[in-house]
């Protein structure tokens, strides 16, 4: 397979390693070291995409991250598909398959191209103006249709098989950009002993210096390549310098927190399955030097978007790095000196340069070198248009008058296959702006330059506006010295190397040639990716959008995935000119992270699948599993729903488990309930302020149920406070409220009452908890537990005792969430499974029955015990729940004062009630809205809602708890529960406790 545009020698590709790849199914070949873009160009492929809106043919125009056109779908194997990949950054690997986007049926024959002829009807914002009525049709018809016509690639439809990692890193100096300024800065800092991290997004460091060819400046009296090799060699020997290539600085946050994306695996010719695909570096450097370089500006002229129009610097890079001349018959149009170097290098490689047009009457010395080399330099000329169908066929050139107006009569059409353009350079100040630096318009560079940088952030080199390499290196040396001094490190004294480079004449910004683009503003593109033209900008201005941010949003200029890296400043200048302002009066649009698009995988890191969030299992998990538990998620915990026997449904299992607890003994895993240890001389004072109930009278060995309120009086959590010693308490919390309650306690202890000597430690995981509940609970425990008197008189309800199971020290709490005689057996976690088995082994005649969450919920519902999160929702107070008896009147506690507010005492506040459906078998759905009784279909305001419901095996009927408007909450009143898919369910209000309201069973 031939590569017609590949030179026989030169470049940094490995001709001994040909690499096969595909574009839209067509087999092609490149070499190791190629990018997808360079390999396509080597094969003479120009047309790689259709534009977003108008479906115009588009080709590769740059060689870096700024590429607006060459977005391709790239597949590297099953599941490894990335849409919208910039071909300029995709390194070629065997088997890579690229597909073009936004075309049908093919790139060459795209039916969507009709859109280009229809462009007069599709101005900026056309969809807002055109498709707004009839109502509803937008969503169903217009939007889907527009999305199909316009757009980027398709999202991958398979799970990503790759791994992504996040790495934290620290250093003294982070250098962003591995061009000459960045490398030199890293070297100086490294020599001074600093820990340096340098990142560069290209596969090889060197920046513009590595991408320039024969006309690269000389350094230290020798060629640039030799200087680069020397610096890289020394950097590699400095142990505290880390150089990351293929690593893009995506974000620099205020306080210098930097995010770098390292592409670890995609480029490898032999994949290593041990490597992650990408690694997101989270760097906290003590100082940052931004040597992010600059981006070349294209010229603005009608039909400036044809495949075959390249940035001049990109043409140099393709030649120097890949030995690919971008054309054979070339025209150069520039307003800047460096494009002459491109022309000279291409000419030296055998390319025919037909003309170099430059509207400036006096270009710099490079122009004279070009003339001396016999190249046709046309000073005072410029490009006025381009011809071609699917690619460039000719450039239109014309001389300009002193007012920079092209003289149409003298326009010439010059056939060519490549047009190199350069309209000067834009410093890359994105990261500085992200970090909070200030930018100011610098008329000489016609660009925004750093005006003020955040603490210990500096900018050097082309990014800071350096026009020459010598200036860039001097800036780098100065910036490093200043930063190291701020860090208190040794200050390096190193002279910048001598640079041999031609002087440069000032360049002319692209927008200076207004008369050129005015010849056809509808084809003069200021945003190639979003298809925004000068005409669209003018329309926005005519319609009254004058602020840059407004124009941006109305026209979408600069809002594509390239974020307007090439033409953004031109768009801004046009807005300034169109509103009679100087660009200095405008602020650039906000630069937000990331600098270039990045995939979700990199952002997610390891947080997917099993590691998306922790899966927490209790020490009794395997025990429950062995007994047939079916698990459900409660927060991050796995908890048994029920223990169905063979062929038994979950509902039947739960009913059986309920009956066992009411008539025999049940055993549940309650380990996930939060446990918090509170100690200190002021522990009692502290808890008295937190809990609603009196704790001062709580004796050691006793427990009390209490509420924790938020300061607005609503219920935060509930639980049991146990007094372990005079200054020592253990709190229980709900499963989901454990972390929240701990944070709440710490907040008050640390920030509001630091004078209290109290220490709070979560101990949830120290103990596994076996809830042993039912009339036979004591009988069962007697057989297993020693060193404790379980008799009711010695061990009353709401008390705790230390005990033993065999040799294992355990702690027994006599508490009940079922309404039955019950104990919670706290076992050191590692002994839990063994103790659980012991219980079952010792009591076969008592038939201890494992029970799960479902039974637990029914049992507590029968008793009307609230469940935080069911009966409460962040707006419910203890008064609403009828728990006024738990509000101490003896003391103050958090939330007390709020409860005194009239609002909290209104008669129509929600009120917790029981509901008895008139049809005993119809269980009202939780969340079901309560409506007035009657025959009409449910309507009118909601009178409340069902908070919990179940069929109660003990009562042999459906029951529910509900929050009802307080003024309607008297027992006996009939209401209905609206159900989504059936007739409303008539219910009668009852007391919110359906079983043993006296609590006799509890105290047995």
């Amino acid at each position, binding site marked *: 397979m031939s590569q017609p545009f590949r030179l026989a020698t030169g470049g940094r590709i490995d001709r001994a390693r040909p690499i096969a790849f595909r574009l839209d199914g067509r087999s092609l070949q490149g070499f190791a070291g190629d990018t997808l873009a360079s390999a396509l160009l080597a094969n003479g492929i120009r047309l790689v995409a259709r534009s977003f809106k108008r479906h115009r043919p588009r080709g590769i125009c740059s060689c870096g991250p700024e590429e607006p056109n060459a977005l391709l779908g790239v597949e590297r194997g099953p599941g490894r598909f990335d849409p919208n990949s910039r071909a300029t950054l995709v390194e070629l690997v065997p088997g890579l398959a690229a597909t073009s986007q936004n075309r049908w049926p093919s790139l060459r024959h795209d039916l969507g191209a009709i859109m280009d002829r229809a462009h007069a009807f599709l101005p900026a914002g056309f969809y807002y103006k055109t498709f707004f009525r009839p109502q509803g049709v937008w969503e169903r018809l217009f939007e889907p249709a527009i999305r199909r016509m316009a757009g980027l690639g398709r999202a991958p439809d398979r799970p990503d098989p790759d*791994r992504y*990692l*996040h*790495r*934290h*890193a*620290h250093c003294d100096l982070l250098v962003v950009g591995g061009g000459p300024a960045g490398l030199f800065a890293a070297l100086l800092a490294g020599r001074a002993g600093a*820990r340096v991290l340098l990142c560069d997004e290209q596969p090889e460091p060197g920046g513009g210096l590595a991408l320039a060819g024969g006309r690269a400046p000389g350094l230290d009296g020798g060629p640039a390549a030799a200087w680069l090799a020397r610096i890289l060699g020394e950097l590699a020997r400095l142990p505290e310098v880390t150089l990351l290539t293929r690593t893009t600085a995506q974000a620099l946050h205020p306080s210098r927190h930097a995010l770098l994306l390292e592409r670890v695996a995609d480029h490898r010719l032999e994949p*290593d399955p*041990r*490597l*992650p695909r990408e690694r997101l570096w*989270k760097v*906290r450097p003590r100082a940052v030097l931004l040597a992010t370089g600059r981006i070349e500006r294209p010229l603005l002229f009608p039909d400036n978007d044809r495949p075959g129009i390249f940035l001049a610097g990109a043409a140099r890079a393709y030649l120097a790095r890949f030995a690919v001349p971008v054309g054979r018959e070339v025209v150069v149009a520039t307003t800047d000196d460096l494009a002459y170097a491109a022309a000279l290098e291409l000419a030296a490689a055998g390319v025919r340069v037909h003309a170099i047009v430059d509207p400036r009457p006096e270009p710099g010395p490079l122009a004279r070198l070009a003339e001396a080399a016999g190249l046709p330099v046309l000073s005072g000329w410029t490009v006025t248009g381009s011809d071609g169908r699917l690619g460039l066929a000719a450039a239109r050139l014309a001389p300009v008058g002193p007012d920079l107006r092209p003289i149409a009569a003298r326009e010439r059409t010059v056939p060519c296959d490549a047009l190199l353009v350069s309209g000067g350079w834009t410093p890359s100040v994105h990261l500085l702006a992200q970090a909070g630096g200030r930018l100011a318009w610098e008329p000489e560079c016609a660009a925004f330059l750093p005006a003020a940088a955040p603490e210990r952030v500096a900018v050097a080199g082309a990014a800071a506006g350096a026009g020459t390499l010598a200036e860039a290196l001097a800036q780098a040396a100065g910036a490093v010295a200043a930063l190291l001094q701020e860090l208190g490190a040794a200050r390096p004294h190193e002279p910048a190397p001598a640079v041999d480079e031609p002087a440069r004449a000032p360049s002319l910004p692209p927008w200076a040639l207004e008369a050129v683009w005015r010849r056809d503003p509808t084809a003069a593109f200021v945003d190639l990716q979003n298809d925004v033209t000068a005409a669209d900008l003018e329309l926005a201005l005519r319609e009254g959008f004058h602020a840059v941010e407004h124009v941006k949003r109305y026209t979408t200029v600069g809002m594509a995935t390239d974020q307007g890296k090439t033409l953004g400043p031109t768009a801004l200048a046009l807005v300034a000119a169109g509103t009679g302002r100087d660009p200095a009066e405008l602020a650039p649009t906000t630069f937000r992270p990331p600098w270039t698009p990045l995939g979700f995988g990199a952002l997610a890191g*390891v*947080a997917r699948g*099993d*590691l998306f969030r*922790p*899966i*927490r*299992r*209790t*020490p009794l998990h*395997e025990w429950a599993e062995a007994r047939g538990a079916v698990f459900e998620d409660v927060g991050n*915990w796995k908890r048994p729903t029920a223990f169905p026997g063979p062929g038994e449904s979950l509902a039947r299992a739960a009913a059986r488990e309920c009956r066992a607890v009411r008539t025999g003994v049940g055993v549940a895993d309650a380990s996930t309930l939060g446990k918090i*240890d509170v*100690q*200190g*001389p002021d522990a009692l004072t502290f808890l008295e302020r937190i809990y609603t109930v009196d704790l001062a009278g709580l004796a050691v060995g006793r427990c009390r149920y209490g509420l924790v309120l938020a300061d607005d009086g609503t219920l935060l959590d509930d639980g049991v406070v146990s007094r372990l010693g005079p200054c020592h308490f253990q709190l229980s919390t709900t499963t989901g409220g454990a972390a929240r309650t701990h944070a709440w306690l710490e907040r008050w202890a640390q920030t509001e009452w630091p004078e209290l*000597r109290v*220490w709070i*430690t979560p*101990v*949830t*995981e*120290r*103990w596994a908890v076996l809830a042993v509940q039912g009339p036979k609970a004591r009988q069962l425990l007697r057989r297993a537990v020693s060193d404790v008197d379980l008799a009711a008189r010695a061990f009353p309800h709401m008390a705790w005792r230390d005990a033993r*199971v*065999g*040799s*294992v020290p355990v702690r027994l709490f006599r508490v009940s969430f079922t309404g039955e005689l019950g104990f919670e057996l706290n076992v*050191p*976690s*590692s*002994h*839990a*499974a*063994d*103790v659980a088995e*012991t219980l079952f082994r010792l009591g076969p005649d008592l038939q201890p029955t494992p029970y799960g969450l479902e039974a637990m919920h029914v049992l507590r519902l029968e008793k009307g015990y609230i469940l935080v999160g069911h009966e409460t929702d962040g707006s419910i107070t203890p008064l609403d729940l009828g728990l006024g008896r738990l509000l101490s009147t003896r003391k103050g506690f958090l939330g007390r004062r709020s409860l005194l507010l009239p609002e909290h005492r209104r008669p129509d506040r929600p009120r917790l009630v029981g509901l008895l459906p008139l049809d005993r078998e119809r269980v009202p759905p939780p969340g079901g809205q309560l409506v007035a009784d009657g025959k009409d279909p449910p309507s009118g305001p909601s009178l409340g809602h069902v908070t919990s419901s179940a069929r109660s095996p003990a009562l042999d009927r459906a029951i529910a708890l509900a929050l009802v408007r307080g003024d309607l909450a008297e027992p006996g009143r009939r209401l209905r529960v609206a159900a989504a898919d059936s007739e409303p369910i008539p219910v009668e209000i009852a007391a919110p406790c359906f079983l043993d309201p006296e609590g006799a069973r509890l105290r047995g």
Partner: protein
Amino acid sequence: MARTAPLARLDRRALESPAADPLILRELPFRTRFLVRGPAAELAVAAAAAGLALPERVGDRTAGGTRRALRLGPDRLVILDEPGSETALGAVLEAALVDRPAAWVDLTEAMTTLRLEGPDAAARATLAEGCPLDLHPSAFPTGTVAASLYGRIPVWLEAVEGGAGRLVVELQVDRSLAEQTLRHLALAAREHGLVLPD
């Protein structure tokens, strides 16, 4: 009675990755572990009762016999001992701290220990995949302890031993969160090579 280690159920083989000099990751269950809270003077009393000096600075540790003291915060000291010593050490702390303005909690059963060892650079890189601290040898030398995070999971870190290009680090983590931490460590260690001995 029999004890069950928190990570006993884990399928370790699936997490391994081959290399000439791999990292080694294992669980050290049942280590005796007490958290003491209080003013420095009280922490010193607790440490002395355990036969240890109080580490002067936060981030330091002291050792003596089978015990170690980790100063994780100004008012936060962790005392470690061999498995099975919780009754003895608990009695010592109880006697020393009774009626003093301090708190102590037996966390032996609440947490477990993950021990990572291997080539120094690989071990530090693996830790850096989840831990936001500066783990450079100059900032985190052997003997350093810290309360930090691995991923989103709170861990206590200790650079236990080092030298000759190798490093041993221990992470102590809540028992129900240990599996998440171990899996994350294994993903991070894969490129360096990893074995998980039983």
